[in-house]
């Protein structure tokens, strides 16, 4: 690495690098600006927001929007449901996936090719919306958590990632366990899993985020408002322009209600996105470790 110090970029290279840095900087700015806009906007007064846009005059900032969002029971119900569904889904999904990836990672496993075909087919071909919907209905899972938690619990792509990761573990571990007479279960839970924390962390985060952010399954399977997860509640507020009536009903005129409804969107976006945005940096160190690249090459 010390050699790098002696290397000098040519003028052409310097120009190229500068262009590159500017491009990268522009991209970063383009990502940040909409976020800052929404954050600042959420503290505006509804009328100012509509007529003049955002200002950085802090004396005019209010937290009205947040008070109204936090005092809305439906948002809290949505939050609670989303947490429950996401946690249950993540636990089941990661567990099933890690389990299945183990035999699939062993070259001596008989039937490996057959099972691989069985699984991979489902990545590209499926029954589609209606047959799946009717099945869930017939199983009596409609309007229950299981309708959104179970169908996608086993993810073939994640299985391939875990399998590839297992294959990168030195086989001496396995041989040592064999000598000690550890059976499959013991080896898997006591020896293999503990050295696979990075891949487990990534898969868990992935599944959690996926469930937390999805709305389609909940939209079609959960009619009961008490069971709806956050994203379905958000959809009503952000996309359908139907804020919970309790949030704006005290306003007199339709115009005022519309302005307030608009402002509430800002605060709702912040409140609902904050948990994941705060959580994800703790997982960042696992992202770049090349876990996904392995799967691509596998």
């Amino acid at each position: 690495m010390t050699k790098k110090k002696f290397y000098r970029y040519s003028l052409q290279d310097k120009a190229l690098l500068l262009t590159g840095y500017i491009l990268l900087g522009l991209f970063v700015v383009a990502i940040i600006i909409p976020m800052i806009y929404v954050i600042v906007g959420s503290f505006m007064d509804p009328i100012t927001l509509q007529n003049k846009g955002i200002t950085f005059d802090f004396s005019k900032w209010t937290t009205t929007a947040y008070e109204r969002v936090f005092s809305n029971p439906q948002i809290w119900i949505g939050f609670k449901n989303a947490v429950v569904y996401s946690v249950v889904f993540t636990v089941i999904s990661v567990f099933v996936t890690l389990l299945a990836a183990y035999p699939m990672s062993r070259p001596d496993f008989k039937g490996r090719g057959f099972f691989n075909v069985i699984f991979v087919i489902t990545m590209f071909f499926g029954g589609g919306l209606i047959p799946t919907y009717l099945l869930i209905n017939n199983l009596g899972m409609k309007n229950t958590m299981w309708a959104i938690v179970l169908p996608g619990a086993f993810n073939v792509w994640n299985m391939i990632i875990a399998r590839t990761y297992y294959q990168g573990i030195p086989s001496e571990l396995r041989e040592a366990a064999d000598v000690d007479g550890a059976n499959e279960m013991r080896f898997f839970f006591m020896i293999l899993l503990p050295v696979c924390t990075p891949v487990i962390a990534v898969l868990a985060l992935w599944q959690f985020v996926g469930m937390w952010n999805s709305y389609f399954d909940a939209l079609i399977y959960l009619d009961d408002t008490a069971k709806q997860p956050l994203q379905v509640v958000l959809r009503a507020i952000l996309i359908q322009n139907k804020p919970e009536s309790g949030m704006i009903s005290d306003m007199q005129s339709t115009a005022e209600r519309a302005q307030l409804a608009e402002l509430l969107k800002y605060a709702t976006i912040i409140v609902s996105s904050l948990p994941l945005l705060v959580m994800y940096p703790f997982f960042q160190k696992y992202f770049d470790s090349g876990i996904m690249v392995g799967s691509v090459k596998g």
Partner: protein
Amino acid sequence: MKTSAKAHPPWRSGKEKGGVQGTLLYMKQHWQLYVIFLMPALILTIIFKYIPMGGILIAFENYNPIRGLLDSPWVGFAHFKRFLSSPDFMSYLANTLKLSIFGLLWGFPVPILLAFLLNRVARAGIKRKIQLVLYMPNFISVIVLCGIVRILLSVTGPLNMLLGTSADFMTMPEAFRSIYIASGIWQGAGWGSIMYTAALSNASAELKEAAIIDGANIFQQIKAVEWPAIKDVVVIQFIMSAGNIMSVGFEKAYALQTDLNMRSSEIIATYVYKKGLLDGDYGFSTAVGLFNTVINVILLVAVNKVVARMNEGKGL
């Protein structure tokens, strides 16, 4: 999706016998692998993936929930004919294809470019901070993303204030695709660059150092060291995305749809949903969905073939 065992010395070699007897003996010795490890995944796959495949029969009948799958009246290919000959068919198909092909053309190179740029950021601390920002939008939900888009583009929103206009972009059919694709890049490009960044950091440092000592400029370094390091990943990513051309995300298209931009925003996936679950036309909706899936599989196979030919026989 080949599984190669090369990197992996066989664990219990020598103990195994060939033939049916050997297999049975193996299964008896290793029953835990089948019953405990594989079974849960297998059961979920059979119930939630394979049983619905049987449900595809609905596409060929006038499905009646009371009479059930096998006793509903058969109609052959009537649903397919109805769909293929309807005036809307071409428009939905074109919308689907345009959305994903343009999305692929615009969106595919951006993560690769980002990875190259990131790779040139020398200081690890700054690189990490940039990555933190780049990945952030990936953790925002589709609904929130579309909410932000609607806010930014609303009639009284910041874009209109900036331009001094009062256009309602969400109701313009001609704006829909740009909105969809641009917001997709905003959300996904940073996250999409992870694979390439990781592959680049796996590029041999020695090779790079040698290139630098030989006086290679940045273009030459990219050509000789960096591009070869990510080429395989690029190829596979391309095949995967090209093979998914027909499966444009329902969730985002539906959330960006308004009554007025339907002319370009109605894609096959949203049509299947509306016909099937909102109108209850199960048979027709299943047929349309099946049509979509089959085209998708054909595309995947075709793209894989073409890419493999260009890439010295290496495809999926």
